[in-house]
């Protein structure tokens, strides 16, 4: 069965792009969330195999959302989406249990590589 991924990013443009990348490579998009709070809600709703989580988001940032999701399911597979200059935050999220991270600007195969590695 195709693996499902929850996409969390505050930019609709980014979400659409990631969605296309994932669906073209045979993944199912479980849902999209534009902030951390929505991400948690959607996680509980859809139980995705993996979450792609942007760090900078309004309402609740990705690190906080990651921690909350880990509380719900400590085996949750979460890959962070970061940008240059967020090293410390990426490290914090790895400490909190993120499985991998990708750095914007994205390359499609980097996204797929990260997702595959975590799910396989």
């Amino acid at each position, binding site marked *: 069965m195709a693996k499902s991924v929850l996409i969390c990013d505050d*930019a609709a*443009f980014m979400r659409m792009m990631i969605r296309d990348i994932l669906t073209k490579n045979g993944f199912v998009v479980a849902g999209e969330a534009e902030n951390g709070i929505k991400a948690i809600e959607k996680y509980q709703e859809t139980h995705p195999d993996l979450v792609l989580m942007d760090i*900078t988001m309004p309402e609740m940032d990705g690190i906080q959302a990651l921690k909350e999701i880990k509380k719900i399911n400590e085996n949750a597979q979460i890959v962070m989406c*970061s940008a240059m200059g967020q090293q410390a935050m990426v490290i914090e999220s790895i400490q909190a249990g993120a499985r991998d991270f990708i750095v*914007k600007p994205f390359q*499609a195969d980097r996204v797929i590589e990260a997702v595959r590695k975590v799910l396989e």
Partner: protein
Amino acid sequence: MDVSQYLDMFLDETKEHIQNLSDQIMRLEENPEDTDVINEIFRAAHTLKGMAGTMGFTRMQTLTHDMENVFSEVRSGKLKVNSQIIDVFFSCLDALDEYVQNIQNTSSEGTNDNPELIQRLNACLSDPKDAPAAEEKKAAETVPAKEPEKPSAPAGKWDEIELNDAIKEAIRESRADGDECYGLNVVIQEKCLLKAARAFLVLRTVSEKGEIIASSPSTQDIEDERFDRDFTLIVISRLTLEELLKAAGNISEIECVTGAVLDLNQQNKKGLVSIPAEKEDSQVSAEPAAAPANEVSAPKAVAETKPVSEEEKQPEKKSVSVGKHLGNKTIRVDIEKLDELMNLVSELIIAKNSIVSATQNGQNQVKNGIKDNIEYLERVTTNLHESVMKVRMVPIETVTNKFPRMIRDISKKLDKKMELYMSGEDTELDRTVVDELGDPLMHLLRNSADHGLETEDVRIKRGKNPVGSIFLEAAQVGNNVVIEVRDDGNGIDIEAVKKKALERGTITPEQAETMSDKEIIDLLFLPSFSTAKQVTDVSGRGVGLDVVKAKIESLSGEVEVRSKLGEGSSWIIRLPMTLAIIQTLMVEVGGEKYAIPLNSIQSIETIHYADLKTVQNKQVINLRGIVMPIVSLFDVLEVEGTRIPEEEMTVVVARKGDRYAGLVIDRLIGQLEIVIKPLGKYSKQCKYVSGATILGDGEVALILDANALI
């Protein structure tokens, strides 16, 4: 990766973010300590950077990156917001706007690097006391690019790590327990951007499989990115070397992981040699250690990474292939509106099915069944139509939200204090109308700011609040949207206008005598008529008001001016909510059917011929105190066949602003919702006809432009 398909969305969202930035910076200017606002600005800049980078717009990315840097410092409290920062940021927004425009028109961001802006941004950062932090940040981020080429991992590095006796003891003990001790060397891919984070991920993964007892450089240095491209670990684990290498090698962006079972004898030999932190040179001088037979390497798939780096090198080329004009007219639609539409369409299908089944039923029921269902169908189609209209509607906010910034700039430029108050920005209009509305409103606002409002000292002398007020108010009134631009400035000097018109020969002295104030004010809308005493940068070139009027009229709207000298003026724009479908009154004139837009109809009257009076050769009637001309549509439309004046006639009273006219018709048919079809070139010759429509029976009816008739 072909990103052209995302361009529309990218443009849409980028514009939103730029707008948001502009709003937030305005707020910040008023309240420089507001952390929410600072965070929001930082986030918006950050998001923009990510989006621009993904699309390969490197210049835009660089600029937003530097903006983000400045706000990162502000956020951490190292930098205080001052007017310099605000100004730089506004200039940056203009530059971003320019990039967006370029992208929209040519699908390339252009070649303007804006070095001056970047310099100014960096100048914000290099305030003496903040300099080190900023420098460090910059340096840290530019390192990956300068990385020297280092093709393969030097083997045996783990042997160079100095182990103290306690650790060696621990290794021996764990070996006795059945664990093994390995040396690992991890090389991170050159293109990896966050090396420390990547390395941290490796550390974490490895420590899940075993215990890291030593590393070079130290784990703290690794976390702080104080290493080049590789680092070395000594790990005690129960796993086999293959398993361990696989676990570490399976992490993304790792070039290769090499490892071997640690040989304490090798260690002993070199154990006393002190090894500097950067030990590349010592590796060369060290005795070439024979590679252990059980050394395994886990190289990354080279083929997989190659296309990426190629693409990375040509970010600009990607987008060139995109089509020429990219500013597609798209609307972002609230999902609820679409749901409603979907719902209605499904109801429509149900209704259709009911009719089908009704016709298949027994004879008697057919008539009733069809009648019921036709009513149902009608209800659904009406709702459906409304919903579709709603989908086309966008709030005028999309054009008004840039005005606060504009007024701020004008205020600075003219050195006049003024405040813009906006209300009803959520009023919705057809997208086509909203798109066209920006320029006229901007003209009016500039006009108010420049000519309307007095200078501060004049205002104080007149006993007014030294800060001028400009109001932009929008509201829906019936099927119209009324937008008012009002100021509490000087108002229109009618005598000055008259004088100017006389000077220019626009009117003759005789005309000037008889003209009403209103007619004089209307002169302002004539092309190239400016009363500004001096032409300023902001407005007053004499282009403007005529353009405003032309534009609004092309949208089937009208502009009205009310002004009181010394107290201010107000410009009122009335627009139909939509251009595509309107409510009309169908009338018959000389056997032909005409549609009169309902929004211009005030009332329908029956008038006795005897009540008509003739004033200045025009037939007028006094209707409840309002004197209005009577226009015979037979004459105006040159309908064949003359009409014999009867005792009574039906008159449609049309209204334009505060002027009225009675349109004489033959017969009323009724109210009808029609779809406007433009007549193209044909209608140009007849200014009273604004379009045509196709009636239910296929007949074509012309739509009368009541405004032109008054």
